[in-house]
């Protein structure tokens, strides 16, 4: 087995002798014998490095990766984008990977500056004033956004669009059991959110741009309604779509949350991804902003330096009154996202969004030619779109996988009102040939 405990028997004896102990068991002499594990843990015995590697290679072979064996048309919150070799190399530097939270700024300027740059770029992408140094994922970011809004407004009722990712809504419900938020769902009509007329009690509105069905929402309209009701608008914004869409901040959203996976991360079976969180300047920031924040300052010699700041909001200082309980976050993923955003730059990000949209448009043109296949919503979309099928989506997807495609995501469970529908996503990695092949396969399997 690989052994990362360096102590040799002779060294162990020397240390025990120094401590006046006879053997290693003596280290635990004060632990009640009744509690001690008899006969070791019920685990297989250790394996060598190459046996461990072989074990996981075998597991890997038992998967049919969407990015690999299959041609991927599935999205729905996890996207098969190109991951530049340089981004992987930079984020993989072991100084970023094997360091702890930068509590000692003199030894952590690298991580601190990278996070500072991440915060700045995230503000550009969302049109916000201030961003934190990451949260766990899109779902936790949404929860924190609602918590902040509720705290800032003193209202516990939150309206969540049905266009929010079903898993995100599920997580919101789960945590509401503890936080006491009263979560109400605003339905979709023709693919976009229909807010109730009476929002008087509302502390927050949560809308996605684009939403889960790929439809473009009227963020400005939602913002106006929120303003009118004295609520905050929390926008769940797709960072890739931000390459072409009006920034949610400029549309009046007070808080932007979202999932940063498309920047710097492989599909990775769902994690680690990164929860994006940014908001407008406001009284609530110093009191209620969740998570870590890096600020620029100077050192004793006046050199520019970075440091974690406003920590009085955080759990290690404020404890039960903290703005959030988050401690370990997704730092190195946020750093990878920052490197990817910088690699793209403004033109690259726009080009990325446009290419996804081109592919989606081309795909739509091909798919709607298939008898029985039609768009499931009327609202305009960008690069994800729901299609209605003549057969159950699950059946279609199963057959498509035999044709070598991960065809999309079955919507019938989460959006029964759409009938036999599935969500098709096209990223910049899909070629005309991929799409033609997909259309042909779909035509075949629904026939």
């Amino acid at each position, binding site marked *: 087995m690989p052994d990362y405990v360096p102590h040799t028997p002779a060294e162990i004896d020397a240390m025990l002798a120094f401590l006046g102990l006879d053997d290693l068991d003596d280290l635990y002499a004060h632990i009640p014998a009744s509690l001690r594990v008899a006969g070791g843990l019920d685990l297989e015995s250790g394996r060598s490095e190459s046996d*461990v590697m072989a074990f996981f290679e075998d597991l890997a072979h038992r998967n049919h990766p969407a990015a*690999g064996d299959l041609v991927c048309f599935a999205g729905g919150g996890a996207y098969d984008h190109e991951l530049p070799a340089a981004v992987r190399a930079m984020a993989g530097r072991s100084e970023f990977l094997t360091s702890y939270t930068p509590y000692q700024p003199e030894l952590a*300027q690298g991580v601190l500056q990278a996070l500072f740059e991440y915060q700045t770029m995230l503000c550009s992408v969302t049109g916000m004033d201030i961003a934190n140094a990451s949260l766990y994922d899109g779902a936790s970011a949404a929860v924190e956004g609602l918590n902040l809004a509720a705290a800032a407004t003193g209202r516990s009722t939150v309206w969540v669009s049905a266009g929010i990712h079903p898993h995100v809504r599920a997580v919101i419900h789960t945590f509401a059991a503890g936080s006491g938020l009263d979560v109400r769902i605003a339905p979709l009509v023709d693919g976009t959110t229909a807010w109730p007329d009476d929002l008087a009690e509302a502390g927050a509105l949560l809308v996605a741009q684009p939403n889960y069905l790929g439809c473009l929402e009227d963020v400005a309209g939602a913002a106006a309604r929120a303003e009118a009701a004295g609520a905050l608008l929390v926008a769940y914004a797709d960072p890739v779509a931000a390459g072409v869409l009006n920034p949610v901040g400029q549309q009046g959203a007070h808080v932007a949350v979202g999932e940063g996976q498309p920047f710097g991360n492989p599909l990775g079976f*769902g994690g680690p991804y990164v929860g994006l969180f940014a908001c407008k300047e406001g009284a609530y920031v110093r009191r209620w902003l969740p998570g870590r924040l890096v600020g620029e300052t100077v050192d004793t010699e006046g050199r520019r330096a970075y440091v974690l*700041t406003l920590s009085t909001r955080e759990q290690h200082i404020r404890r039960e009154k903290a703005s959030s309980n988050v401690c*370990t976050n997704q730092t190195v993923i946020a750093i990878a996202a920052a490197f990817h955003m910088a690699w793209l730059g403004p033109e690259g990000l726009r080009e990325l969004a446009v290419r996804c949209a081109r592919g989606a448009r081309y795909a739509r043109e091909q798919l709607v030619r298939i008898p029985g296949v039609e768009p499931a919503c009327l609202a305009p979309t960008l690069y994800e779109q729901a299609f209605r099928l003549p057969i159950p989506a699950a059946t279609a997807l199963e057959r498509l996988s035999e044709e070598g495609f991960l065809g999309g995501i079955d919507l019938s469970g989460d959006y029964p009102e759409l009938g036999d529908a599935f969500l098709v996503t096209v990223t910049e990695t899909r070629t005309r040939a991929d799409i033609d092949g997909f259309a042909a396969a779909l035509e075949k399997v629904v026939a």
Partner: protein
Amino acid sequence: MTQQVPEILTGPGGGQAASAPLAGREAEPTVFELSSPGRRAWSFRETGIDEWDAADLVPAEHLAPEPPALPEVSERDLVAHATRMSHRNYSVDLGAYPLGSCTMKYNPKLCDAVAALPGLTGCHPAQPAAQVQGWLALLHGLSEALCAVTGMAAATLQPAAGAAGELTGLLLMRAWHEAQGRQRSKVLIPDSAHGTNPASVTLGGYQAVEVPSNGRGLVDVDRLRELLDDDVAGLMLTNPNTLGLFEVQIEEIAAAVHEVGGLLYYDGANLNAILGVVRPGDMGFDIVHMNLHKTFATPHGGGGPGAGPVAVTERLAPFLPGPLAAYDGETDRYEWVTPERSIGRIHLWHGNAMVLARAYAYILGYGGEGLRRVADGAVLNARYLKERVRGVFDFPYDDPCMHEFVASAAGLRRRHRVKALDLAKRFIEEGFHPPTMYFPLIVDEALMVEPTETESPQTVEAMAQALRTVVEEAAADDGARAQAAPVSTPVGRVDEVRAARDLRPVWRPEVTEPSA
């Protein structure tokens, strides 16, 4: 020279390495300062799809006039910038990192290789179970291993970190009490607890009530008994606790809590100290969270990602978040199953999957006996180091330590006005990352030291000598050098007050002329 240098050609050169500690101590320019209009690193695949422009694709009311303001840099300048930033950061791969409670042990490169397997990284989280049997087998196998290590019955791998695990655990507590038809409002936590504990209690909808520690730094069982009543949902405990001390009265504590119908929650941040020695389940805990990034050596990533799986006893299993990977012996297939009374999802997908893969590789490599050696090494190193610095530091709570110990610089502060902070900064000059400072709160001028098992005895001895040197020097010069430390780092001590007062969370052109 006569000619004028064109303005456009001036500005920070991305290829200037003056900020690399190897060659200088200048400030590293921000990536925004390395930007030049029209410069690019990006390229995209040839798709053969018609090149409609944005206006053909996006309704006018949604189309942004221009893209977000991001830096425009060459790949070369970006890579150099990133590499220099990396040289301005300490890491486990550079040296010892004895942060108490954080368990900064060596992160095996083997686990990085596992986490790079295309057959694992390439899977979409929404792929049908039939397409990702390897992943489900991995998650299922890891869950079983974690249950074996903790003595629990079932586990969820969704929590992305320890704090998420805590909140999950508290929601499980709530769901369980509700299922018993009870409403309870309080959760007890020791005064030595980590800040995430009370914060999670609040988010769990409970009121946090502090249990004082006794003279030995352990839970004061009599006071605990006084606090226990039928409004107490449970007790959160870290064992060994944040002083590095094992709660030897854990059985009485468990009995007392269970007596009033409460549940016992195990904060697994220090699980590494007892691997293969004692199991939370055997101590009477009902709910356990683990920090895989501590106990099972997944890299901390400068603050994350981690993974905080939660394991529970049989009676709580029906409440676990779902879906869970389950094995069907008949079909020899793995399926997603959601417990019938599940509290619901707590992660967008299945948790930090690639982190989980790393931790599983670590566990499989060590195996049962190996994990016991991890605990032995961690405790032996800490015990040795503590004894080697006895006399130069005070130990307000001096029971035999487990994997870490907490020293106090209160005496030094009184005698020489040198703070724990100063000693920590001075320790850097000896070539080590400082220990955790000012935690737990019940120790004055605390320095919390966790050498971990992957540091060799020689490294531990070198740390001991360095700590002694630092303290003896401070005693001699009344902390003069310590208060000026560190001097050899890329930056000296930073102005934290200014950072908070004059908040600059984003780069703005006007405020960032490099001052160096």
